[in-house]
């Protein structure tokens, strides 16, 4: 049972395995994302720019709030929370 529910953009083709990589317990969302990046080079490239900076081309929501309106990457994620990455879609 994954402790934190994670939703990645379907366009990222990340599959459904990602929920399992998250360790249990409370941690900052920046670490959750770093952990995610370590799980797959593809995800890492999606999430982080070459110098390790989190990209700003998608929004990260913790439950119903954009983490930028909380404490950014230091926002704490607890068991049972839902983390959702909202991608920027370009098509029309």
């Amino acid at each position, binding site marked *: 049972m994954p402790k934190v529910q994670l939703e990645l953009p*379907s366009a990222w083709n990340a599959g459904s395995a990602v929920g399992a990589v998250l360790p249990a317990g409370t941690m900052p969302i920046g670490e959750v994302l770093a952990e995610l990046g370590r799980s797959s080079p593809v995800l890492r490239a999606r999430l982080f720019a070459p110098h390790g900076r989190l990209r700003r081309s998608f929004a990260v929501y913790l439950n119903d709030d954009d983490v930028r309106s909380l404490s950014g990457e230091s926002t704490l994620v607890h068991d049972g929370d839902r983390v959702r990455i909202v991608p920027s879609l*370009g*098509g029309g």
Partner: protein
Amino acid sequence: MPRRSATRISVDLPALSAEDRRRYSRHLALPQVGELGQRRLKAGRVLLVGTGGLGAPAALYLAAAGVGTIGLVDSDQVDESNLQRQVLYSSSDVGRPKLDAAGDRLASLNPLVRIVRHDAELDPSNALSILRGYDVVVDGTDNFPARYLINDACVDLGIPDVFGSVYRFEGQVSVFHPPNGPCYRCLFPEPPPAEAVPSCAEGGVLGALPGIIGMAQAIEALKILLGEGRPLEGRLLLFDALEMQFRELTVRRDPRCRRCSPRHRHDPLVAEGGGEGGEASDPDLEIGSEELRRALSGATPPLLVDVREPEEYAAGHLPRARLIPLGELRGRAGELSGPRPVVVYCRMGHRSGRAARLLRDLGLTEVRTLSGGLAAWEDSDHRARRSTR
């Protein structure tokens, strides 16, 4: 968001003809539209940028509803592969300019509305003059540079930007209209890296999907013209066709937004992400003020390089910054090779953006440019002090 007062009866709203009354009788029957609302629609001017998957259904419904002036921006021709979703066009239109085909179709649907054709691709030089004078802009484009440009021009002109986008089985809708709500850059400050962005042509899109999103955009445009209902400002509507599920997320204004914060509202328009000429900003090379501040107090503080002119440097610079004017940078790049990462900066971030690209091209791997330059740095400095008071 209070409803705009229905008592805003203006003498310059056009009157309805007998033909209008027959055609729009189902609108006249709605208390929220009625005679006054229909006159507002008749006076309304909506610009559709892009007449593809999103613009096609939006244009059909806006014309049918009696929006008096509908502008269309597109420079494409109808391709056979468009017909799977761009319901404005017929098989016989293949090869015709979209503006001609769309203009004919909309005129036959409703000869009472005026169609204005802008045979152009939106760019930083023409965006303001094309958008100016419209009440609402509907973003139905298919690429990020156009989306950022539409946002930036709408913020500058104060026009609501009715945003819609699709990919494969998913869609998004929102209305960006600061200061009432956030802008597109508040939500997505930067475009995704180009290699991570397959287009609908490569990735595919379900035929009816842009229909539902484009029609949601048309409804938002009508609500704005009518001044009725709760606009989709500050809310992002997500649609998942495979799950047949709508969800809504709250989007907040970013007080540091590089477009809709007061100091940036009227910044010159630039081509964003994948623009021509290599002058577009490269998000991977940028470092924000907060991040730089942290890096400077960290274990391996970066070497700061001021690429402005000596007199600008003399008037004030960041502590311990080294002066190398942009014009001398190529010849003096050797001074910067070493273990320390380099951060270049200037006043606004334009010159240092060029500097960072130059240094990267010369083989420096650890180089970044201060995003927004000293202007952004000072801004964040003020905020930091205020918040500790």
